[in-house]
């Protein structure tokens, strides 16, 4: 018993960390917070590039990390609905509760696409707030980053000038990079593509890709071979040039379709850690654009 009290006392006496503690649900927001915060921020990222952010469990390590977070950065739009509310409740952390400045939802900073006109679970795994995969358009990163900088500045006023300076430098580099990517991706404009999951509306909008079909009959519902067969006939007229699939998803359906339709399967990293090259935000888009342009050849 005395030992237990000693242990508890030593835990309570742990020094408060100076840096802002950021808990990011997905790698892209973790990376963004790191770009803004530099060494004035301690970032924990709950998921990796090969994990499906829809299906994560509120496992013990996440509860422990959420307990100490000053700022929780989530995508929102119900992407993390299956686990984030539980983390908020189990963490006993008042700072990250809904309505507190310590909860930042990226999806609130951008114009959402694919807003469903009918809310019915028979439509598959739809999100009432719109498609949550906003990170595939680098212009969204800019909008989210600007708002995140101000939120971080609000929570840690002492470091506000550092955050703003870091953000200014990053956003200048990012804008230059967007111009570079747009130039490189010019041949992709108007190219018809097939996607595995409806995960790319923002990327398609940015690059002017033409989405002719999704392999999933409904969002989150796997395609049967029979369904893929009919789809093959249906999209033949549109002459898709490639099949897009995110690294965290099983490529089986895409590979089957690619083989039958004789089009390349492009596995894009989708987020940081999706592949070897996607180590940071720049690497993520460098690799994505290279793969997309490469598939045209």
């Amino acid at each position, binding site marked *: 018993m005395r030992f237990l009290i000693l242990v*508890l006392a030593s*835990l*309570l006496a*742990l020094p408060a960390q100076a840096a802002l503690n950021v808990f990011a649900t997905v790698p892209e927001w973790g990376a963004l917070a790191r770009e803004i915060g530099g060494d004035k921020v301690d970032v924990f990222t709950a*998921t*990796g590039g*090969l*994990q*499906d952010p829809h*299906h994560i*469990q*509120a*496992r*013990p*390590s996440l*509860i*422990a*990390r959420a*307990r*100490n977070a000053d700022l929780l950065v989530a995508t929102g739009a*119900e992407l993390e*609905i*299956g*686990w*984030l*509310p*539980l983390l908020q*409740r*189990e*963490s*006993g*952390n*008042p700072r990250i*509760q*809904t*309505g507190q400045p310590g909860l930042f939802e990226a999806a*609130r900073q*951008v*114009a*959402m696409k694919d*807003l469903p006109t009918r809310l019915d*679970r028979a439509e598959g*795994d739809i999100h009432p*707030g*719109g498609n949550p995969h906003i990170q595939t358009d680098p212009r969204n990163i800019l909008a989210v980053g600007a708002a995140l900088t101000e939120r971080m500045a609000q929570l840690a006023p002492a470091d506000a000038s550092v955050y703003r300076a870091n953000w200014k430098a990053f956003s200048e580099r990012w804008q230059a990079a967007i111009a570079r990517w747009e130039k490189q991706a010019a041949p992709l404009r108007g190219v018809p593509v097939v996607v595995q999951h409806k995960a790319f509306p923002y990327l398609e909008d940015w690059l002017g890709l033409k989405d002719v079909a999704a392999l999933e009959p409904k969002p*989150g*519902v*796997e395609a049967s071979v029979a369904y893929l067969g009919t789809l093959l006939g249906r999209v033949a007229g549109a002459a898709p040039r490639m099949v897009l699939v995110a690294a*965290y998803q*099983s490529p089986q359906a895409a590979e089957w379709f690619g083989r039958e339709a004789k089009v390349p399967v492009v596995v894009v990293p989708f987020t940081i850690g999706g592949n070897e090259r996607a180590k940071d935000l720049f690497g993520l888009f460098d690799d994505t654009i290279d793969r997309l342009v490469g598939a045209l050849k």
Partner: protein
Amino acid sequence: MNRTSIAVLAASGLLASLPASAADADLNALRDEIRQLRDSYEQRIAALEARLAQAENQAGAAERSAREATVTASQKPASEAAFNPGIYAILSGTYTRLSQDPRHYSIGGFVPPGDEIGPRRRGFGVGESEIGLSANVDQLFRGQLTISLPPEGGGAEVEEAYIQTLGLGHGATLKAGRFLSGIGYLNGQHPHSWDFADAPLVYKAMLGGQLRNDGVQLKWLAPTDLMVELGAEMASGGPFPSTDRNSNGVTVGTLSAHLGGDIGVSSNWRAGVSLLATSPRDRAYDDTNAAGADVTNAISGRSRTWVADAVWKWAPNGNPTERNLVLQGEYFHRHESGSLAYDVNGAGLAGDYASRQSGFYAQAVYQFMPRWRIGYRYDRLDSGTTSIGLEKSGLLSAADFPVLASYRPQRNSLMLDWTPTEFSRLRLQFARDQSRPDATDNQLWLQYIVSLGAHGAHRY
């Protein structure tokens, strides 16, 4: 257009820098003219650039206002209904095939806490329907109400009705009301999220299915990267193994400590120890005495249950969508001592009573391809040897307490389930249940469980 003018200017610049040879005066005049031309072009380009920048700004503003318009348009109109809590309903149904009569179900050597522990019935039947409401009450509290509707009728039952703090800080959370106790692992989960169609034998025998407390719960999370969670509960009332005491004091207390963390990217774990302490008064149970007459006996005294639980989950790259494996097990040990009253409605004899009972289950559930899981569970209980004063003193014999006769029940269960979406599950389960000393029950379940409405987050 800009590009063309720049090219013209560049060409004229080249022209202007040509080496002077003859007719210098003419050339100088020409140069002046070109310079003037260039200056005027530069002014016009600057003006054009300014206009372009302005137009871009306006376009940006238009885009922003369009974005704001989209955001506004997507918001629901204000109404009272906008504050409705999240509502969900759980529906389930089974087809059960049992080789033994469920009305005579018992767990040998253990005092059954009621008629809810066995399989409900043979043939087709609906399970308990469950309705839940939950929402943040305000910035301080969250409320949850879960009502279950037993298929036999008899009115709705309040499964859970509690409030929980949102902002106590320092990792503390306080819960008050009726809630699922935080002891063990499975106890905190709703039956619809269990991996098998029924509870482990040890939960049935030691907790009467699941422990719900009417009281308060305090949980504290340590500020460490390794999850360290300590919990304590104080409650009154009479869920098994306790009884209603008509007392102002706390009659049920629990303590629990859980640790958890990750092992690399692919696996994670949680393990802990809990204690449930209570003092039942006149906890009655039915038995048949040596003469074959039905008697009601009652136990009073103190009851201490220790629970050790552990779960380990694995998924390649931590992505459970394709394949994953979950191993879990819990061990219970209960020590009870006090007095046993024999035939409380008749003879009314009383004597000492002491028992040490234990049991465990261990299970493995493997998702071998998306949406399909297979699982195996082994259950084992040991009733130990119950010490009964009335028997030792020779007043009564062991044949007067057949329910308490020493026995080691066991059960093997095998299940296969298909989960097409997060909201529906179909399950096939087969069990060979040796809970009864005299017969083996071969059980087959076909079950569906679906959830409607608000997207509930499932506990770890």
